[in-house]
């Protein structure tokens, strides 16, 4: 009888078929034994420029060009490796030294083995993405060698061998193969060394026994130039693993993953994202699907090593531990100033000062107001996903032992992150002296039970504190804005003609296919002054029947950015253009954004046009969507347009058209308001900068002109019309934007405050009711009061978001703020990816072009939505932070008295909003006088009675005179406006 059994290959060349076996537990709880067949081959190139053999088998591009070898013929040399060397890191080396591998100056010619790549993917997804990005960087010369598929380098797991040992063996096998393989083509003496980098002693020993070169990461780094700086970049947490002795643990242990999933499924535990209160670093919240209001996490022990942004599992605490959200400002730096970063022993999780701060909170637990009612608290029992990123901060100068710049002794210092919600991070460095007073980028490596603070390592220095370059870069890093120049692969997607590209004169050109020639229309654009990326243009004419023909023309970006190209992927990742005060980080390369797509005046441009017939009452008679070619007659700024319309002497057709537009926009706006659209306010200021240096010279609040609203109304109309069309065509995959109605609970505090302080009621039952009751919130003595309430109401809202139509019921499509049943973004494809996607969907809906597969799959669209929602929010934050920074710079050295309004009352301070500069700031009791006056806080009435060195009664919504100076905030190193009572 012949055996049916499939034999495992025993020698390296016996067979080209092998298999991998593993166990997979599916989400539904099914446990499967998975067998994967592995087909081994011999045509995977080594990709070294030295190798003559592999050039024959290297893969070719579509046009028949052979892929050039990645690894250089003359790799970097050093003292030890005079013939140069190729690096082969193992998994651990990549995990601990990712920042090193990303260095520009060293770590070139790196062979990333498939074994390593897969292991990194299993261990840390963010690091995996960075590693993949690294392999795409042509300067780094990183080559992914698929050793698991090459017959010679495939190793079969032996019986009793652990997976790790097997993978280590696979790495050594690959190193050996490279060595032998290269020696076939190159003389032994000239052959570059193949250096395995591994932190595993055992593995290195075995490698050396096999005649290979194996170095630990730190050993290799210490052979490089500038080794001290580089050594700081080695991940701390993982290196220290073995050094750990049994120490007292400060934090409770996490539950096992299975215990947590069981608990979450059974409803006894809850999963949510952990966030820290910006006013009290000891108080966090976790919003969980099971409850309407977030659960409160109090103190370090309960937050159990969670960092703001982590996805955590919580357990609700017994009722006697419930308490009110804190009404006190607690800042980390004031309480933990004297911690010693070096000393590990004698540390307690909660210092006495912190404990006292908590006790005072608990006293407040028995209140009667909605705000004062004890609320459920919870403790964190485990982390599902760490969302640690790189943090920008500065070295706490009190934690530095010797600031001698020449001292190379390693010492542990605290880095205080710019984001107040992130705890201090303990970093070991040899260059403490140099880093003082610099913005530095660091990452968190680990947070063990026996360490009060997380441990991290230094990545790089951004530059001096308060220097414009460093601060801007810090901002971009902090909000995860992709600001690197576009990669070559992206720029390759641009039209070859560059700036000379023109709309083809010949209308039989394929570019003209199905395009309407609208060059005769009197189109113009209205934008902020100095705008170069003109997304939209408008026109209007009266029809013989008394109706109006109105058109909105949007830059046809989808004509240049084809789906699933490198440029599309990059734009999708960036999500949006980010506007800072002095800088713009584009979503698309300049050539497109500011030239080829931009609807500049006097040149022909491709456009995507929405053409309506509107009645004089602005009701839509018909709507038509067309790809078109237009020629803008003029690019106005808002002010210019306003002047032109107001100038009665102008009677040309263009001006008449604009007057029609203005008239119609007023009707549209009135209709929208009647339907319950909200007129919300957020403080917006404009920074006047000196044109040469772009140093800020003044701050002005933005002015709204009628022409702003003109453009806005027609953009809304276009967006709504397009949303309807796209949704009809693609009920499952239309990309829409919604704004969920905020739950009434969000307004509870504001409603109560208004009732207590002003006897006003806020009806939040619908957007219409809210809009109406907001209109009644006026105060005779303060004209700004209404705006203040609108600002506060805006903060109670949920954020608008993009979504795929199929994921929600049509009733949930509603845009609450705009009071529209359906909405999307269509009008700014140059600066928002969502609009670009909607352009493609609309083009498919009107049968102009087939829909790309990526826009047909709901799951992929959901991924796109998730990303652009995050990017959109981050862009807003970055923009605001940039304004905040520049306001601080503009007010540098000034001392002003301004009018302010109390927005929030705490037990030991108040938050005041200054409309003149659109800033809000904290005035603490200790800022009001020395010695610190005594505050008597009435949480019911929102009053803080200050007595002692300063006597004043501070009430919510009151107008106060504030004194504005500036100071460098110690905790964040930011120059900030400092407010005090005048």
């Amino acid at each position, binding site marked *: 009888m012949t055996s049916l*059994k499939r034999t495992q290959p025993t020698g390296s060349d016996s067979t080209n078929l092998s298999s991998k076996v*593993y*166990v997979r*537990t599916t989400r539904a709880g099914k*446990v499967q034994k998975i067998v994967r067949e592995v087909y081994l081959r011999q045509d995977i190139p080594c990709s070294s420029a030295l190798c003559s053999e592999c050039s024959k088998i290297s893969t070719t591009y579509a046009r028949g060009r052979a892929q050039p070898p990645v690894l250089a013929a003359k790799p970097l040399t050093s003292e030890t490796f005079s013939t140069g060397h190729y690096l082969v890191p193992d998994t651990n080396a990549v995990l601990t030294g990712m920042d090193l591998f990303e260095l520009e100056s060293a770590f070139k010619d790196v062979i990333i083995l498939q074994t390593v790549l897969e292991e990194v993917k299993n261990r840390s997804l963010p690091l995996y993405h960075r590693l993949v990005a690294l392999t795409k960087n042509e300067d780094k010369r990183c080559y992914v060698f698929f050793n698991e598929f090459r017959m010679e380098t495939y190793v079969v*797991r032996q019986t009793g061998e652990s997976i790790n040992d097997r993978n280590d063996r696979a790495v050594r096998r690959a190193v050996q193969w490279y060595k032998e393989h290269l020696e076939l083509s190159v003389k032994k003496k000239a052959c570059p060394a193949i250096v395995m980098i591994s932190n595993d002693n055992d593995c290195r020993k075995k490698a050396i026994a096999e005649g290979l070169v194996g170095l630990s990461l730190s050993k290799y780094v210490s052979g490089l130039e500038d080794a001290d700086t580089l050594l700081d970049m080695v991940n701390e947490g993982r290196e220290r693993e073995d050094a750990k002795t049994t120490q007292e643990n400060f934090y409770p242990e996490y539950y096992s993953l299975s215990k947590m999933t*069981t608990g979450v499924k059974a409803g*006894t535990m809850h999963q949510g994202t952990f966030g820290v209160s910006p006013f009290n670093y000891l108080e966090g919240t976790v919003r969980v699907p099971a409850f309407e209001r977030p659960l409160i996490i109090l103190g370090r022990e309960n937050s159990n090593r969670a960092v703001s942004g982590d996805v955590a599992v919580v357990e609700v605490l017994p009722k006697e531990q419930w308490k009110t959200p804190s009404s006190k400002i607690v800042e980390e730096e004031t309480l933990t100033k004297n911690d010693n970063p070096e000393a590990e022993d004698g540390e307690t999780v909660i210092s006495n000062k912190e404990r006292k701060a908590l006790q005072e909170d608990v006293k407040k637990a028995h209140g009667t107001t909605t705000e004062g009612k004890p609320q459920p608290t919870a403790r964190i029992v485990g982390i599902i996903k760490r969302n640690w990123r790189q943090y920008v901060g500065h070295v706490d100068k009190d934690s530095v032992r010797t600031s001698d710049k020449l001292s190379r002794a390693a010492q542990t210092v605290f880095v205080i992150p710019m984001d107040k919600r992130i705890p201090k991070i303990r970093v070991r460095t040899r260059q403490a002296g140099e880093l003082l007073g610099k913005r530095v980028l660091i990452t968190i490596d680990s947070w063990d039970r026996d360490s009060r603070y997380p441990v991290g390592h230094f990545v790089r220095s951004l530059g001096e504190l308060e220097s414009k370059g460093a601060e801007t870069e810090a901002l971009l890093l902090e909000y995860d804005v992709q600001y690197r120049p576009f990669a070559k692969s992206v720029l390759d997607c641009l039209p070859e003609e560059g700036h000379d590209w023109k709309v083809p004169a010949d209308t039989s050109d394929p570019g003209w296919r199905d395009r309407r020639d609208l060059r005769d229309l009197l189109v113009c654009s209205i934008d902020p002054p100095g705008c170069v990326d003109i997304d939209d243009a408008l026109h209007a004419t009266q029809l013989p029947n008394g109706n109006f023909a109105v058109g909105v023309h949007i830059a046809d970006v989808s004509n240049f950015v084809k789906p699933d190209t490198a440029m599309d992927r990059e734009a999708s990742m960036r999500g949006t253009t980010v506007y800072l005060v002095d800088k713009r980080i584009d979503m698309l390369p300049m050539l497109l954004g500011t030239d080829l797509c931009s609807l500049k005046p006097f040149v022909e441009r491709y456009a995507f046009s929405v053409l309506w017939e509107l009645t004089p009452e602005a009701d839509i008679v018909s709507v038509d969507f067309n790809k078109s070619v237009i020629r803008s007659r003029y690019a106005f700024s808002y002010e210019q347009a306003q002047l032109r319309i107001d100038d009665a002497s102008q009677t040309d057709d263009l001006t008449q058209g604009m007057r029609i537009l203005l008239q119609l926009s007023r009707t549209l706006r009135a209709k929208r308001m009647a339907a319950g659209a909200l007129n919300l306010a957020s403080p917006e200021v404009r920074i006047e900068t000196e044109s040469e240096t772009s140093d800020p010279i003044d701050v002005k609040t933005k002015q709204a002109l009628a022409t702003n609203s003109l453009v806005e109304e027609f953009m809304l109309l276009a967006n709504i019309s397009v949303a309807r069309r796209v949704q009809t065509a693609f009920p499952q995959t239309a990309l829409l934007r919604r704004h969920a109605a905020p739950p009434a609970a969000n307004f509870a505090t504001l409603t109560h405050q208004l009732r207590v302080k002003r006897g006003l009621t806020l009806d939040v039952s619908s957007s219409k009711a809210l809009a109406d009751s907001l209109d009644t919130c006026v105060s005779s003595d303060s004209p700004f009061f209404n705006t203040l309430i609108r600002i506060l109401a805006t903060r109670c809202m949920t954020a608008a978001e993009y979504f795929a139509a199929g994921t929600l019921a049509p009733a949930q499509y509603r845009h609450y703020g705009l009071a529209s049943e359906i909405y999307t973004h269509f009008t700014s494809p140059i600066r928002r990816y969502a609009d670009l996607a909607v352009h493609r969907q609309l083009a498919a809906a009107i049968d102009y072009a087939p829909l790309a597969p990526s826009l047909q799959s709901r799951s992929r669209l959901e991924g796109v939505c998730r990303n652009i929602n995050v990017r959109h929010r981050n862009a807003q934050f970055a923009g605001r932070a940039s304004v905040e920074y520049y306001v601080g710079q503009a007010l540098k050295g000034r001392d002003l008295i301004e009018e302010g309004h109390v927005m929030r009352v705490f037990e030991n301070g108040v938050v005041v909003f200054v409309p003149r500069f659109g800033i809000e700031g904290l005035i603490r009791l200790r800022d009001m006088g020395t010695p610190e006056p005594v505050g008597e806080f009435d949480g019911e009435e929102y009053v803080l009675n200050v007595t002692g060195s300063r006597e004043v009664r501070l009430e919510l919504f009151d107008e106060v005179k504030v004194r504005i100076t500036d100071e460098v905030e110690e905790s964040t190193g930011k120059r900030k406006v400092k407010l005090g009572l005048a």
Partner: protein
Amino acid sequence: MAPNATTQILLSPAELSYLHASLSLSPPIRPDGRSPTQFRPLIAESDILPSPNGSARVCFADGTEAIVGVKAEVHKSDAPVIGLLDPTEAGDDDEEIDEKPTGKGMGEDQWVDMGIEVPGQRDDDPLPLFLAAMLTEALLASGELKDRLWINRRFHWKLYIDVLLLSQPLSYPLPLLSLTTHLALLDAKLPKLVSEGDEDPLFDDDWEASGYLYPLDSTGKRLDNPTITLLVISVGANIIFDPSKEELAVADAVLAVSIGVPTGSKGLQILSMRTIDPPSKLTQPGVPTALNSAAGATNVSEEEIIAARETSTDQGVWNPPRGGLSRKLIPQIMKAVLGPNGVAKEVIDGLNAVTS
């Protein structure tokens, strides 16, 4: 039930009579020359299929062949226990003497599901159903297998044993299927559990870390074995193991003997003994010459023939047995099976040798 389809007996009454006579001798003379307890040579291998948890294949010398795959799935136990997930109870207190539940006595019969496929038969035909029921009954008889499928109070493994008979059932296939199943179960592994207590089960994703359903001791020997079912026939005063097709055709009684190998030193143990309708019952009886009209007898009525056959003791004329087992044969069978060099030990040792 008579497995009629398997026993198309194509022997004449005279041949049957001859066979019966030679098998009744002491010692019996078997057509293939074997001793009464000797098994036909067989070929067996385990772990032949990559995907199931365990698999095996056995070929008998007469050309019959079977493949068995064992698959295990995690299932939720029927009665969810309330209050189990109370976090205060879930084991924060390490001091508490933790009586780790082992699942002893927790197993349920429906956790093992066996399906048998016989060529040419529908899956609801009596033969496969009957065979499956008999094998399952034997496997569950000791209770150890089903208890082993207990994961925690909320989850258990469900074992699917898929038996595929590759050849036509030339002889009664029960021993073949039992041996193959036995081998597949020996080969079966379950992923290693990493979760604790009554949590949703979570398993080590390394298949190498999984453990045998029938675990090995430190020296690599099996602690215990699955139940095995053997076929024994009696002919006259003799008992004969592993009957061939012809031998079955003349058996006085057919017995399926299930032998359990419990954990510990208790040794082998007979779990059940089940009589099976002997196929010989359906054979055509021989007619004595005296009554045979073809041989010149006249005026003999049907009733007379039957009456004569009832009382006939003529050894030369084939008379289908009417079933029933002599009481004194039972101890003989037990001795032959369980004795120091008994059949059961030989078979089990042989099968263990295949998997190790």
